[in-house]
């Protein structure tokens, strides 16, 4: 309890430093919002070990580390060539953030169609503070969650995306969040707001990458709103270094007949927690949540998803595939909530974990909470290792053990990767998987 209190104090102290750097901007409406969020955070504190939502994830390593807030000076010296290997180079719209700062020189926003806004959030709230603040307040995002409250308290920058009604954007939007070499011991709270108006469609990729090797903390939040008939494919690729901490919050509101597909791809981070909450508030909305996570060393990867069927005829499909090696640990917790009037709901959830070493561990908690009768809801979970018979089958055809295991592991991941519709992204993800095969000696487990 005392430690908890100390870590809350640490963050409050950082807030004060952050505040001092703001100088004259302290009295702005946005800053009043930050202070409100901070006082909420002070009240909520951090989730304790008894908190059911955090049962399997121990936050003490994160809370015992002191992270400094922004230095308020954009880092210099990063060139296009440095980040080339992380971009798609495929005519995409691109926003680059380094240590929390939007870097226009590295970004690419040429030839945006009409009715499409892709900008830095700071630009938007600097010009239209009042509507932004009142929307944030109505959203009530930070009243009941410590990390969301922290995100709002340290609100600085992020992406603002608005796709006007009827616009079908065929170029993907790529948001890149880099931790630079100067990011050691720092924390960053990117805040993204994504709006798709009636009938709009888009593909958005968020990539989180560390260029440093030291510990840093990313506490990202994306707010997504889909109007009637809007369609969004939303990807979240996290490949930060193995000393870093990553908390990701994705909160989605879906109106009538909208379609939202999330693909969460986690490779990096010492401790990662991804929260996705989708609310199907309009009839006939459809949600797809796919996830792939691959743990090595002593990584801890916690995926927590909530699908709220608030009204009738909603559909949701969820598939999470986890590959755990070495001493890594995975947590999956997925709730499907069907409210009393959400009749004709069709919800399916499945999560599978592959344990590739003796010390790997998985905790899985699929949950159904159903208050309507005319529904079809299922969930399935499996945990196991590679199928001996399949390995034997491949070996009998002259493929060596190692390769056979790699093939099967790759195929296990492919259940998710094959659904990635942006080819350059799919190639990046596949190469991340293959890289693990070379560097990790986990395949010598006894069969």
């Amino acid at each position, binding site marked *: 309890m005392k430690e908890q209190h100390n870590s809350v104090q640490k963050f409050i102290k950082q807030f004060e430093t952050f505040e001092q750097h703001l100088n004259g901007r302290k009295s702005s409406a946005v800053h009043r919002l930050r202070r409100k969020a901070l006082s909420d955070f002070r009240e909520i504190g951090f989730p304790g070990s008894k908190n059911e939502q955090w049962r399997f994830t121990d936050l003490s390593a994160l809370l015992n580390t002191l992270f400094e807030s922004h230095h308020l000076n954009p880092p210099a010296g990063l060139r296009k060539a440095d980040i080339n290997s992380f971009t798609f180079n495929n005519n995409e719209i691109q926003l680059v953030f380094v240590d929390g700062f939007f870097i226009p020189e590295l970004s690419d926003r040429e030839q945006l169609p009409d009715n499409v806004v892709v900008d830095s959030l700071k630009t938007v709230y600097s010009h239209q503070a009042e509507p932004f603040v009142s929307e944030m307040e109505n959203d009530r995002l930070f009243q009941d969650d410590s990390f969301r409250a922290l995100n709002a308290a340290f609100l600085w920058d992020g992406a603002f995306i608005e796709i006007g009604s009827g616009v079908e954007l065929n170029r993907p939007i790529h948001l890149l969040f880099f931790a630079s070499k100067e990011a050691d011991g720092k924390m960053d709270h990117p805040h993204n707001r994504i709006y798709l108006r009636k009938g709009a469609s888009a593909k958005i990729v968020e990539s989180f990458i560390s260029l440093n090797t030291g510990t840093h903390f990313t506490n990202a939040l994306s707010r997504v709103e889909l109007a009637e008939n809007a369609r969004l494919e939303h990807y979240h690729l996290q490949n930060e270094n193995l000393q870093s901490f990553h908390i990701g919050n994705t909160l989605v509101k879906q109106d009538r007949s909208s379609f939202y597909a999330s693909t969460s791809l986690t490779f990096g981070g010492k401790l990662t927690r991804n929260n996705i909450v989708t609310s199907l508030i309009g009839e006939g909305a459809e949600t797809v949540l796919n996830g792939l996570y691959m743990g090595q060393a002593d990584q801890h990867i916690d995926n927590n998803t909530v699908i709220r069927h608030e009204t009738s005829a909603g559909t949701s499909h969820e598939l999470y595939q986890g590959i755990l090696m070495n001493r890594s640990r995975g947590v999956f917790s997925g709730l499907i909530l069907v409210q009393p009037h959400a009749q004709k709901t069709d919800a399916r959830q499945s999560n599978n974990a592959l344990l590739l070493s003796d010390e790997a*561990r998985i905790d899985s908690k699929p949950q159904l909470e159903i208050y309507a009768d005319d529904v079809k809801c299922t969930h399935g979970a499996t945990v196991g290792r590679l199928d001996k018979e399949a390995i034997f089958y491949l070996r009998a055809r002259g493929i060596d053990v190692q390769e056979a295991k790699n093939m099967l592991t790759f195929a296990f991941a492919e259940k998710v990767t094959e659904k990635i519709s942006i080819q350059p992204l799919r190639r990046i993800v596949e190469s991340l998987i293959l890289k693990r095969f070379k560097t990790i000696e986990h395949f010598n487990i006894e069969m």
Partner: protein
Amino acid sequence: MSTETERIEKMANREYRYGFITDIETDSLPAGLNEDIIRALSAKKKEPEWLLEWRLKAYRSWLKMEEPHWAHIHYDPIDYQKIVYYSAPKNKKKYDSLDEVDPELLRTYEKLGIPLEEQKVLAGVAVDAVFDSVSVATTFKEKLSELGIIFCSFSEAVRNHPELVRKYLGSVVPPNDNFFAALNSAVFSDGSFVYIPKGVRCPMELSTYFRINAADTGQFERTLIIADEDSYVSYLEGCTAPQRDENQLHAAVVELVSHRNAYLKYSTVQNWYPGDKEGKGGIYNFVTKRGICKEENAKISWTQVETGSAITWKYPSVILKGDHSVGEFYSVAMTNNYQQADTGTKMIHLGRNTRSTIVSKGISAGKSNNSYRGLVKIGKNAENSRNYSQCDSLLIGDQCGAHTFPYIDIQNPTAQMEHEATTSKIGEDQIFYLNQRGISTEDAVSMIVNGYCKEVFRELPMEFAVEAQNLLNLSLEGSVG
């Protein structure tokens, strides 16, 4: 559709058939709980010093504990000082034959459909009938004792076999295990004790009928069953309770110990008073049931049919300690009106090559809430362990809730774990299919539900399976359109 709905409602609103109170003078302690009450209770039962100490220790740890509220259930706070912790029928004489038993008691059993004399002869079931808290009649004792089987009330076991009781009591569910187990350990009144010696196959189903009777009496049963090496026993527990307005607390503890190569099967049919259709009254059933497969090839199987109680909080568990040991859990939980059930199982795999199977079928109707909550844990050393879980929920009516909260914790890569859950209502096409063949909607529903529960029912001993089906039909019949 609407006439069907009406008919259904009529069926669903049927009065609780087993609601009646027997007039027998009881010998009770005053309400409330403190060390003096426990001492008095222990003295009344003429217990040895060590047991009193054990109770007091449990009571002291209970004082430091908090009532758990993580389950998906809601109820008014319980005043533990208003509960009477001991009541026994006054007539404490021992009987040699049934003729000597208080005829009032016998009539109660008859109303419940347990004609002792008939069962003795026809069904081959030895019945240790627990009336409130003290065992009144025990049958077939001689036959069992020839084989060295001990089947008696808990108090008797404390008197006659203290070494066994002392060895095993609290070895599976420690007195400070949880709030309700601690409370039970402090104040348990009586219960059943079974010991099956090495190499003995118990020739008949052992059965106890519980019945809560005296008003405001908490029922704190304690059951301890030990199956020694290479033995087999099937134990049945079933219960009905009379209609009451005030909520009654029931916090039982059941401990099962299965030794090398032993097979212990425990079946329950629970039909306590669920409260009226407004959700008033009914039994609070907070039970701790746990078994341990101590050595190799031990097996424990739980089968439960839960149709009663206002609130059920119950997780029969198996600790699979011995290599190659097996745990099973088969459950049907039916809730109607305002009933709430939060039930499931825990399978803790510690030994190598251990296997467990979970089949849970929930049925919710009316305004009830029915949750499955379970844990499958495969420890670091549990090589090649397997688990298969299946949890299905059936929803009847649009105001009830069905929930599934499985916890899966796997720490060994050689483990294989599969979990499946589905939630749905009875398909209109299924009913239509049966209607087409001249089967009324009501019968169709009954057939479909019975088919849905078949996997569990077939695990029950014959006599029980029939009763279970009847109970289910009673609480359900035609509640679907």
